[in-house]
């Protein structure tokens, strides 16, 4: 009965991963988004529920659970209900191949599927159907228009996304996510074959941002034009499921970027003196900010916190490397650090760039990213072939 134990294990892992997605990506993700957005706009963000507003999204979830489900009279009820579930499940399935770290000989991943990154892009492509179905089933002009816009945008950026993934698969020579991380032991892929690694990373991140419909590529949801686009008619928990799927996917993209370009769970392999220099520089800046009184400025406080955290990391790393420990910190710490750094980057982009127009958006995908991605593949392939 080997398969029965496997199914039981799989069910348990599903529960764990779903809880992780609901708590870490959806709830904490929304909290982070609101808090960081607040900081960038020099306001406080959520503050009242729990310490620093940490429990705000939990309160929101409880509120959403008590909201009435409104189904528009003219909607196709079955598809209307199935669409958010499909989007959420597609977001969940992305995470099957994401490795969180490595403890001893065990890699912390649900399954290291042989065709890992291909699997990832296949699952990411399923979201489009859920969005299109939801937009259509609402029988609302804005929703359908938003659904069509979202679908045409997502399919346009699926190709550059795949090209970014392929670049990594080519350099690593494998499609397995664990294999890709292991292949970066010497050098992270963002630095390999310079400058083409950076180019591939930029292609991937741009396409990933568009794929999850985030600013500056948020036309489908443009709240000022389309009243939230394809989920205009969704209320309460169904709306929350769409959000869950979207945040799960956004975090999965950040996680995949960390795995493919930033070495995943691997520790940065820097000499002790560099850690020390970085740490001292960090301490210096923090002290300068506090002494000069600039730290009392609201907008500088989050920067101060981030700076203090990274300074602490540098100092810990310095002492760890001095003591000859390797790795100094458990690997999941690094994975999450990199993933959250990329999530922070996504939120930062949101408040830096204005929304693109539809024609600009499509031009960027088909006329810039696609040729650039293909050329990047060919040139890197050529270099690798020559180097042999």
């Amino acid at each position, binding site marked *: 009965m080997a398969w029965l134990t*496997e*199914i039981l294990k*799989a*069910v348990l*892992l*599903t*529960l764990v991963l*779903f809880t992780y997605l609901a708590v870490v990506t959806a709830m904490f993700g929304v909290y982070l988004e609101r808090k960081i957005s607040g900081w960038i706009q020099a306001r406080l963000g959520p503050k009242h529920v729990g310490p620093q507003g940490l429990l705000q999204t939990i309160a929101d979830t409880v509120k959403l*659970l*008590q909201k*009435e*489900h*409104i*189904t*528009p*009279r*003219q909607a196709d009820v079955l598809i209307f*209900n199935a669409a*958010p*579930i499909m989007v*959420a*499940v597609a977001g969940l*399935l992305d995470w*099957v191949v994401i490795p969180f770290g490595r403890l001893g000989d065990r890699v912390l991943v*649900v*399954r290291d599927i*042989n*065709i890992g990154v291909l699997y990832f892009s296949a699952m990411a492509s399923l979201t489009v159907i859920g969005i299109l179905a939801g937009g259509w089933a609402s*029988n*609302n*002009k804005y929703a359908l228009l938003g659904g*069509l816009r979202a*679908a*045409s945008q997502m*399919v*346009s950026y699926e*190709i550059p996304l*795949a090209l970014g993934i*392929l670049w990594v*698969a*080519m350099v690593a*020579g494998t*499609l397995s996510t664990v294999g890709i991380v292991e292949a970066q032991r010497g050098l992270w892929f963002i630095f390999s074959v310079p400058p083409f690694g950076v180019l591939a990373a930029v292609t991937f991140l741009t396409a990933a941002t568009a794929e999850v419909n985030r600013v500056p590529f948020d036309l489908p949801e443009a709240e000022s034009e389309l*009243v939230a686009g394809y989920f205009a*008619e969704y209320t*309460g*928990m169904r709306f929350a499921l769409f959000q*869950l799927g979207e945040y799960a996917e956004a975090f999965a993209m950040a996680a995949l970027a960390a795995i493919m370009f930033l070495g995943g769970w691997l520790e940065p392999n820097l000499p002790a003196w560099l850690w020390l220099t970085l740490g001292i520089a960090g301490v210096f800046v923090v002290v300068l900010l506090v002494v000069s009184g600039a730290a009392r400025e609201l907008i500088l406080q989050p920067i101060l916190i981030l700076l203090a955290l990274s300074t602490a990391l540098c100092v810990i790393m310095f002492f760890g490397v001095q003591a000859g420990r390797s790795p100094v910190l458990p690997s999941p710490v690094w994975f999450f650090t990199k993933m959250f750094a990329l999530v922070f980057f996504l939120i930062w982009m949101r408040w830096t760039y204005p929304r693109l127009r539809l*024609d600009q958006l*499509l031009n960027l995908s*088909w*006329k810039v990213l*696609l*040729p650039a991605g*293909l050329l990047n*593949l*060919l040139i890197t*392939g050529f270099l690798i*072939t020559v180097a*042999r």
Partner: protein
Amino acid sequence: MPKVIVDWLYVAVFAFVGTIMAALPLGIVWLLAPRADLPQKTLTYESGVIPFGQAWAQFNVRYYLFALIFVVFDVEVIYLYPWAVVFRQLGAFAFFEMVIFLSILLVGLAYAWRKGALEWA
């Protein structure tokens, strides 16, 4: 059991249990949330304006053109995956095969570009 089967058994269980987990909050809402059917409430939302006609009308054909180009290039990408994994072992020959493959497709992209199929206007 072979690794492939176990891998995808997990995927199947994830899809199945994930669906149940996602449907669960909808069930909780059914238990907790109030229900009051008012004709105004289930009206299609169009920013307060009384909706006219069906939403299920026609849209611009350009959406189709982009979907079309996407399908062709998505198919092209599936050939790149096996190539990316093995071209190192097969050497220069495999590389130039892919160059030919891609240049034929780039002709298609150039054609679409030239004919304005990539414009949104």
